[in-house]
């Protein structure tokens, strides 16, 4: 098969996490009841008019700045006219000729820079579901939910790059608090458009679009299938037809969508009910200041500052609150190496078990900091610390109180340890004698005996010192 160059562009839609919809006052909160969060405006009743929920603008501007876009001081709303039952007004209010931002970019791990053509604000459509006896049911709760649409240039050459781009996008919007961006809830949707051309051909081939990809895995699978399909067509000398393909999740197959639905002609024109949006320089500057450290910058800084390997850094940076929690809890700890594993295993498993996020753990970073200090100062050993951490996650108590209130496993004072070591020596006089006659390795045995007796209540370094001292005294 002759080989082809693959060009892929991506249209991403991200649901913005505001409390109310973009052009009316309805709540965006999830509800089981259909047509609950609706009003005459988002249901497209006769005579209604849109009004802008301004709080979507800073969130969109933040996202655009994080993608190195230029913000258009003046952007305009437009109508995208087409018919579909889930589109109440018969048109979608979006931005066409004058989007909110343009000319952005994103750097992939490979160092390749992907160009972002534009970013604009628009409203989501309603939802259509099918019940058992083949009825199509309409629910307009989602109609009017604010969306950011981000369109890239066809700079991707493989499905891996597309997935990496979308994963970065997901992390950035989560970081900025713009969206929870869960693909399975449709809060982040990626629509790749794919074109193939023979090596040496300058201009791009005919492009096709894939819809209905609800996870990173299906995006990858969909793109691979489409590249295959186009390769076969082109290799047979035929021409690719520009069509929209629908991905069937169950059958893992691509099927062409009926021509009538993807009406190409949207008859865009400026939305007469919404004058243009003018953004002042001060407003944009104020948002620039607000932008928190982005995932890739934080990754590099944390990896250097706390000398973590890339997997560890990846886990810690995966969630903004988790990273903040980490940095606060390890403040002032000298030997970080020993405690990072708490953030790689123990704490994530607590979170997963209780299905909560770091914010609603019942202990906070100051408690954790105390615990880590104790480890740092060798007051307690690691597995003892794990027990305390488990208790902390149950009671939310301060580690010091846990240690005090737990009675039997409070750590021993120095002379208590000495008393205990002497008892051990009494009980193992034969081994002490053999050690004295030169069998050095018996010392390890004696240490083990002391540790067992101490039952994690004493610091191993301390036990060693006192044991040595006692053995020397008895010589």
């Amino acid at each position, binding site marked *: 098969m002759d080989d082809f160059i693959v060009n892929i562009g991506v249209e991403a839609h991200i649901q913005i996490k505001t409390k109310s919809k973009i052009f009316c006052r309805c709540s965006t909160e999830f509800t089981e009841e259909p047509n609950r969060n609706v009003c005459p405006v988002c249901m497209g009743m*006769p005579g209604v*008019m849109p009004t802008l929920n301004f709080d979507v603008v800073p969130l969109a501007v933040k996202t655009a700045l994080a993608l190195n876009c230029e913000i258009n001081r003046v952007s305009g709303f437009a109508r995208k006219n087409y018919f579909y039952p889930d589109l*109440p007004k018969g048109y979608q209010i979006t931005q066409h000729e004058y989007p909110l931002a343009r000319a952005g970019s994103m750097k992939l791990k490979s160092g390749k820079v992907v160009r972002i053509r534009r970013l604009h604000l628009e409203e989501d459509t309603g939802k259509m579901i099918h019940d058992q006896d083949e009825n199509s049911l309409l629910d307009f709760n989602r109609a009017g939910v604010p969306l950011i649409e981000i369109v890239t240039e066809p700079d991707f050459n493989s499905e891996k790059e597309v997935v990496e781009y979308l994963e970065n996008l997901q992390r950035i919007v989560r970081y900025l608090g713009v969206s929870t961006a869960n693909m399975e809830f449709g809060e982040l949707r990626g629509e790749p458009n794919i074109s193939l051309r023979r090596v040496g051909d300058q201009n791009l081939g005919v492009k096709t679009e894939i819809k209905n990809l609800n996870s990173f895995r299906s995006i990858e699978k969909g793109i691979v299938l489409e590249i295959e399909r186009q390769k076969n067509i082109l290799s047979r000398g035929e021409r690719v037809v520009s069509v929209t393909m629908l991905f069937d999740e169950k059958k893992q197959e691509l099927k062409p969508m009926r021509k009538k639905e993807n009406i190409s*002609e949207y008859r*865009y024109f400026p939305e007469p*009910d919404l*004058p243009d949006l003018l953004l002042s320089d001060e407003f944009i500057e104020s948002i620039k200041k607000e932008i928190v450290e982005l995932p890739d910058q934080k990754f590099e800084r944390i990896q250097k500052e706390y000398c973590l390997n890339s997997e560890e850094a990846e886990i810690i940076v995966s969630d903004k609150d988790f990273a903040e929690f980490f940095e606060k809890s390890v403040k002032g700890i000298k030997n970080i190496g020993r405690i990072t594993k708490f953030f790689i295993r123990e704490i994530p498993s607590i979170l997963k078990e209780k299905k909560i996020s770091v914010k609603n753990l019942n202990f906070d970073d100051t408690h954790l900091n105390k615990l880590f200090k104790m480890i740092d100062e060798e007051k307690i050993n690691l597995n003892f610390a794990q027990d305390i951490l488990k208790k902390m996650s149950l009671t939310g108590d301060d580690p010091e109180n846990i240690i005090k209130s737990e009675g039997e496993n409070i750590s021993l004072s120095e002379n208590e340890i000495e008393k205990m070591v002497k008892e051990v020596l009494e009980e193992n006089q034969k081994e002490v004698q053999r050690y004295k006659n030169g069998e050095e390795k018996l010392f390890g045995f004696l240490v083990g005996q002391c540790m067992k007796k101490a039952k994690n209540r004493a610091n191993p370094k301390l036990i060693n010192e006192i044991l040595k001292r006692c053995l020397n005294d008895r010589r």
Partner: protein
Amino acid sequence: MNVDLLKKSFESREKSPVNIVDLIYEKIEKDELNDFITLSKNIAYEQAYLSEKRYEKGETLSDLDGIPFSLKDNFAVKGLRMTCGSKILSDFVSPYDSTVYKRLKKAGAILIGKNNLDEFAMGSSNETSYFGVVKNPCEKDYVPGGSSGGSAASVASDHSSFSIGSDTGGSVRQPASFCGVVGFKPTYGKISRYGLVAFSSSLDTVGILTKNVSDCKKVFNVIRGIDEHDSTVDDLKHEKRDLKRICYVEHIPHTDPKVTELYDKVCLKLERMGFNVEPVTLDFIDLSMAAYKIQTMCEASSNLARYDGIKYGLQKISGQDLFDIYSKVRGEGFGKEVKRRIMTGTYLLMYDNGKYYSLSFKLRDYISNSVDKIFEKYDMMVLPTSLSLPFKIGERVDDPVRMHLSDALTAFANLANVPAININGGYYEKLPIGIQFVGKRNDDDNLLEWVKIVEEEMKKNG
């Protein structure tokens, strides 16, 4: 039936809002003008009763307390049918109130009913309504004008003291002229359009029909002003100033000689009143017809896309596929005039990706600049409201091009977005001839003040 007289009779207990409502409903029945699609009797009697109580206690809400009014049937009233004169919405009940109705209700005014209109406010003779033709109260087998034909007829025949209509290219001023009442179109964006069913969103303007200009000012001040539901409303105004310089239009082609004769008489009277009246020529009448057609049809094709028989209105149950069902519902639900405009509008937007529509904005720039130049020198312009006298019912139904001519002298005010008001200039036999006064953008209050003076002067000596 004007506001001041009614108010005085309520205050003096000579009459009560409830008996006025009784009289009105009797007269509506007797006159058989078909100027109402829905009568809101229980709302009217309830509001009249409350108003009566307020008068007894002497705690009236506003100048309009107890005053009976009507709404063109493309304004939303919660719980009341809103048909827009169309089969496709013939059983639609609005779940919400328009801002205009909310403010009038708060002021204590009494809603008599919803006036008949040209379907979706498209037309200038009120002959395209699914609910039948409206008769002109002055001469029953003549048209009342349109598209707010029902509103003009109801004010002229005392079926309501004032009425709220919508003026996109003259749809309040032209019927006011044909029925001999006051019809005011303010500057675009003075009164909220929330609840007014959209025809052409960038031109639609809430208009007011009354017996006299002073009533019009009272209604205007109750319903104008910023509204949280409409982003295109402003409250820009000019300083109060006296009227000095008026201009009239020297030569208007296609005008009925009887109209020209009356128009000249009015200009003379204005001179005698001491105003400086000078001629100007308008070179944008044809332009405004072209721009008006393009803009309204393009926007209407989008504004009426929501009528798909899914959520409300006329519904079809089965069909070959979804899109086939849409076409059947709209094919049957819309009248001819509406279908023609939707299709032409769709074509204008599709053809050469909307070249015509963007061109029409250039036309509006041209017209707006020309009109602004005139108002740099003059305070007010006077011209006839309509090229013709009211015509007989059915006379022009199949003549869309000449039908458009009936907006020739009114559309430019919408396109240039300047205020304009029609008052009655006089009669030819029983047929009224309206005179139109146009003001500078945002000069609505001064315009109303000046035209009030002119109106009183004209009433004095015939």
